[in-house]
């Protein structure tokens, strides 16, 4: 059960932190249509976080609510991958981070939704429907930027260069993940990465982008080890519940 709890928390945290990051674009987007799109993306992700947290709280059995898990844990108790906490940067950076993550999440949920672990499967079923749209939306923008103007191409390639190193952690499975593979909750890292690269490869080809791999592979999110950014994100997000302990909102 602990492993399911940990898995629910990890995917909840991924969705929470990415959703929180994306909300910053609302009222700051290149178009009003994109303001609305960022609202949708963040609503989907925060909705997913809420479901994963509710499940985690239930499995833990200590009476922690979804809000307790979101608002009353420190950075070292958050288990998201570091990719999702990276700064928004410019629009290309945000869309590249989005593409790398949601392509991964879509593939993960594809397996999770058929897993015998019914509670996780139910969340994954719903979440995957949302991820299909996210993958298409991010992919379309990466292609548009990559194959748009010289300036947008340059920014899009730079975004790929910026975000790529953080993607390795997606496949850095630990014991919990391996146990989940055995239970049919997660796809194997190898299989997942092959499919992920195939899906991204098509987008990058249309966008005219190249993957410039180096050997830097930051990671550690699964163990609560993060980049400097996360505690700022949480500080802002948690300010009211932390300042007013016990208050209802």
């Amino acid at each position, binding site marked *: 059960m602990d492993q399911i709890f940990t898995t629910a928390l990890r995917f909840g945290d991924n969705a929470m932190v990415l959703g929180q990051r994306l*909300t910053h674009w609302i009222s700051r987007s290149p178009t009003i*249509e994109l*303001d609305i799109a960022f*609202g949708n993306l963040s609503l989907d992700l925060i909705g997913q976080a809420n479901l994963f947290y509710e499940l985690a709280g239930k499995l833990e059995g200590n009476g922690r609510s979804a809000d307790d898990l979101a608002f009353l844990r420190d950075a070292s108790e958050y288990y998201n991958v570091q990719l999702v906490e990276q700064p928004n940067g410019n629009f290309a950076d945000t869309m590249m981070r989005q593409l790398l993550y949601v392509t991964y999440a879509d593939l993960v949920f594809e397996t999770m939704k058929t897993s015998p672990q019914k509670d996780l499967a139910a969340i994954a079923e719903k979440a995957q429907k949302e991820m299909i749209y996210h993958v298409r939306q991010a992919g379309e923008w990466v292609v548009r*930027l990559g194959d748009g103007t010289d300036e947008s191409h340059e920014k899009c390639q730079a975004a790929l260069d910026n975000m790529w190193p953080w993607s390795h952690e997606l496949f850095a499975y630990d014991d919990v993940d391996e146990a989940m593979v055995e239970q049919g909750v997660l796809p194997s890292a190898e299989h997942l990465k092959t499919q992920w690269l195939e899906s991204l490869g098509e987008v990058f080809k249309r966008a005219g982008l190249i993957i410039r791999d180096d050997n830097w592979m930051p990671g550690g999110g699964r163990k609560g080890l993060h980049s400097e950014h996360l505690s700022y994100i949480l500080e802002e*997000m948690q*300010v009211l519940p932390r300042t007013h302990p016990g*208050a209802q*909102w």
Partner: protein
Amino acid sequence: MDVHHEDKDMRARFDAYVADEGKVEPKDWMPDGYRKTLVRQISQHAHSEIIGMQPEGNWISRAPSLRRKMILIAKVQDEAGHGLYLYSAAETLGVTRDEMDEALLSGKAKYSSIFNYPTLNWADAVIIGWLVDGAAITNQIPLCRCSFGPYGRAMVRVCKEEAFHQRQGYEGMMVLAKGTPEQKAMAQDALNRWWWPAIKMFGPPDSDSPHSDQNTLWKIKRFSNDELRQKYLDMVVKQANALGLTIPDPDLKFDEDTGHWVSGPMDWDEFWAVVKGNGPCNRQRMKHRQKAHDDGLWVREAAVAFAEKQAKRNNQQKAA
């Protein structure tokens, strides 16, 4: 034929038609003044929705629960949707989105002054739903019957969503007002700062309102500023009392004869100062909008360039 004669004839027919509650559609003949008034009013309304995203958007990242965060995102998103919807209604009158954007950014076009006040605590983000959306609905329900069809139809949809926002805002205020002493203080502080600006959202008193008469004849405006303000006041005083908060108007009293609440004197100098650009956040709101516009330029250019390339590729494919 005498052109002026024809214009006069058409004008007379138009006036009779709208006086008889006829609906005007974009392709119909309409007097220039009618068109101009509507472009001004609809685009101003759209700009208000867009600028109005900022004060509430300011609290999205700090909303105190997942549910409140989702409600706030959805609300700000609705405002963006209303903005787009209204821009489209204005476009049917022959003005372009670019022209309207430019008018907003250059300061030529106005937006509702209420959004030039800051959201300093969480209750501010909540009270906007109750007080500001409440005032907006009071204004907009009669606009559902506006003689200009596209505007009236847009208002029907907008009002439904605003009514929902107002209920959510009021419910959010109720939670704060019944919460911890700190939460109650937050709610009171927000009411102290938003009460008068909200009451003044209906514009200057009837004795001092330049557009009302013609707009009333054209069935654009159905009630005067003071009539709308009275409806609003009667509604929100009751609601504020139910919250157990103190309305910051020592002269507020109930008139037994008329059955209406009467407010104390309103500071119209303050109102005009904000309209003219000297409210607490006018400059900040415009800078924010301008920055989004400037930062997004390369993205919009990329989208256009990509669409052109795609069109070219499609044509070449067809030709081959």
